């Protein structure tokens, strides 16, 4: 069974590119365009991994991350934060809130795949 990944980002073109990339690698891909949608999607679809943008409408990535980690049912969901803000404080904030990994935009598609596979234990 292929692993399920949710892409949560409000930048449409970024979503298109990652979606294409992950589908090509055989993943089952879901998409959310804002924080609330992402949270709902995780609860409903139970993806194995969430690629979470920080700057999103309605609910930012940090809040989504915190909400996910507060829910014991979702403890198995891995979270990879993606953000265009690469400052150290941002990184440590994300990791402090329980994210499993952190990537700064722009990223290399190869590295993204490596990180995704690592988090999924593949």
């Amino acid at each position, binding site marked *: 069974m292929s692993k399920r990944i949710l892409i949560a980002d409000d930048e449409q*073109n970024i979503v298109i*590119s990652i979606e*294409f990339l992950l589908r090509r690698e055989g993943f089952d891909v879901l998409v959310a*365009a804002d924080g609330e949608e992402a949270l709902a999607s995780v609860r409903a679809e139970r993806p194995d991994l969430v690629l979470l943008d920080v700057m999103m*409408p309605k609910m930012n990535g940090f809040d989504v991350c915190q909400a996910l980690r507060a829910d014991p049912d979702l403890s198995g969901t891995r979270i990879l934060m993606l953000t*265009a803000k690469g400052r150290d404080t941002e990184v440590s904030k994300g990791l402090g809130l329980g994210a499993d990994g952190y990537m700064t*935009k722009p*990223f290399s*598609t*190869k590295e993204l795949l490596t990180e995704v596979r690592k988090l999924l234990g593949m």
Partner: protein
Amino acid sequence: MLEAPVVITAALLYLGLLFAVAWWGDRRADQGKSIIANPTIYALSMAVYCTTWTFYGSVGRAAVSGIGFLPVYLGPTLVMALGWFVLLKMIRIVKANRITSIADFISSRYGKSHLLGGLVTVIAVVGIIPYIALQLKAMSSTVSLLLSYPEIVMPGRSATMSVAADMSFYIALILAAFTIVFGTRHLDATERHEGMVAAIALESGVKLVAFLAVGVFVTYGIYNGLGDIFEHVATHPDLRHLVSAIPSGQGYTGWFALIVLSAMALLFLPRQFQVAVVENVNEAHLKRAAWLFPLYLLLINIFVLPIALGGLLHFAGQGVDADTFVLTLPMSQRHEGLTLLVFIGGLSAGTGMVIVETIALSTMVCNDLVMPLLLRHKRQSLEESKDLSGLLLGIRRGAIVAILLLGYLYFRLAGEAYALVAIGLISFSAVAQFAPAMIGGMYWRGGTRGGALAGLAAGFVVWGYTLLLPSFAKSGWLPAAFLTQGMFGIELLRPQQLFGLSGLDEISHCLFWSLFANIGAYVGVSLLRPPMVAEATQATVFVDALKDTGQLGAVLWRGRAKVSDLQGLVGRFLGPARAQAAFAAYARRQGRGKLVTLEADAQLVQFAESLLAGAIGSASARVMVASVAKEEPLSIDEVMHILDEASQLRTYSRELERKSRELTAATLELQEANERLQELDRVKDDIMSSVTHELRTPLTSIRAFSELLRDDPKMHLADRERFLGLIVSEAERLTRLINQTLDLAKIESGRADWNGCELDLKEVVEQSIAATSQLFREKEAQVDVDLPDNLPPILADRDRLIQVMLNLLSNAVKFLAPGTGRVRVGLRALADGLEVSVTDNGPGIRPADQELIFEKFRQVGDTMTAKPSGTGLGLPISRRIVEHFGGRLWVESVPGEGATFRFTLPFAEANVEATVA
């Protein structure tokens, strides 16, 4: 009448009197009724500066070089003018750190270094020994002279006598015994000797009275006043040069060198440091001493030249040593009472110097030389011993005897070759070596232990080579070739023309080379590396001594210790009873009944360390306290942090004391301005972060698509074309963003180009609508215009206004629903200008967001289903453009019913100033 028993009895009676005074002074001190708490007594005790050198030697010097004896008193006079600053600072430092000697002072300043304390002690002992020899020489020769009374027979050479027959040997022993009784009856944490100071002050009085008596006797008894003596001299071709000018051999350089040298000696001679700094009971006494002590020096020197000249005239051709004129002139007149008074005066000068100097040196030898060695090699037995105060007293007593015997030895070796003053100057030059480390340590934070060690060692070696060794050579103990041909026969190494430097007298020569080496090494080595923790800490304690540092030392200590351990430790060195009393007094001062409780705080540890420092020196005290206290080392960063904080606190509290209301208000204003600046800084930081975020977003897509295309050459053509299209549009977005960011930055910094001219606003609006018609067609939106004719012109930049209009129109169209969208563009005249409005029937903007959208990068995307595709800079730029031409741009909106953006621009006539500006 002046037979041996009379002389000896008189001398012993006088010493007995001194001892009685000292004993009484100590007793009064123990009762808390100090007899030396008096500025005049303090000034008199400083007059221990005047030794037999002054009493007998000055006349001898004057007989050779006229007023050349004077600079060594002018130097101290000048120093006393600065004493209010330098001595005050030393006193504060000494009191705060319980420092007991110069060695302790320097060692403590440079991080409580044993090595440094030891080096200073060695220099002090070696340097002072000639000076002690001088006293022995003067005292023994006056005793021999007196014993041959009424004949005047110059004493024979001591060196030819056996030790057992040598009077000066016995004098040395008697002085040692007397000093031991004076100075080491008990140990005190502060190492102060009130009784001794009282006795020294008395001695200063006696020697002044005696010298003035001789002066008056010679001037007005033997001759008819000063004029008479100088008239006699004027007729004497051999003597005329003495009353006219600075002696040719010395010159102005030598004169100046002696002033400098004596100025340093007054500060750094161990005995001067002892009476002026360690024994000071009240720093206010410095004020009186500032002029009273120089006055004393002036008085004791007034009759020097007359006595010298009188002696030279009187004893012409009789081979009487001028160093003895003070005694031999009254002797020659058979004036027995005055002769005895002079002898007692000379005894005062000699014993005063020897007592204070050897006590000061023995404290150094014990605290900075012997204790550190014992700590290193006999630590075990020291820690086991219950009461070490006996051991400490024993060490000091042994040191006193040893120092006096060394003085005697130097006297036997080299004493005969020099006049009294010349011997004294050798010692002055030695203690001058302390100047860089001391003064540098008090005023320069950068001095380090390595620098102080290097400077002192270099100065000491040069001093030994250029002054001490030649004194042996001149006495025949080293080959004379050493002087004339230099070491190993190398001319450049001639000790008194080092590296070919000639034209200076030997003292100036030594002073120049030794201080050159000393200061050079001190500063040079100090600059090699930054100070370490201990050095930086002590540097602050010393350099900031005049500021209220409070308990800085305690703050800089972090660790744990038990009160009982500390008291036990102090008790071992001071005796249990004294320790008990000291701790009880401490508890009372702190407002606590008993100290038995639990753990000691940093202040108590500091207190214990300072108690010990008095007895065994600060470096050893640190080691001993460390043995019972678990100290956690502070890093240099922590120390600097604490120091910074402490100095900030100090500054702050002082400011508060002084400041008037206006100043306080000004401070507040400054603070606000600072906060505003910080706020601006933060905003700037936020904007930078936003800009990078906005730049990274399109870059992310571009990179991802590019990599996809690169990695998959067999991609479907449709995907390929779609991705390439996206890359192009993201690249365009990036370009737009960069342009707008730069544009905004230009406008904000005032560097934008504005081409203001009179415009017909209607034409601008129509042109803009035409330019965006394609956008409206794509959304199938309808545009209504309401543009009246013949409106007055406004003054603005055409391109900039079009930029504003395009922005508003494209914004409006962006949020229109496809097919049903309507945009209305209106233009109307107001009282003082024109107003343009752009109204859409889109989703509208929440009231909370209506100002937000004019901030940079604040797209209010969360009210909409999709994120707007702008840069977030269009509206902020538009608003700045409108405002530049004196107008206003704002939005009115009811969510769900669309939004109206409006801007105004004033008429051209009203607008002239705004555009010109």
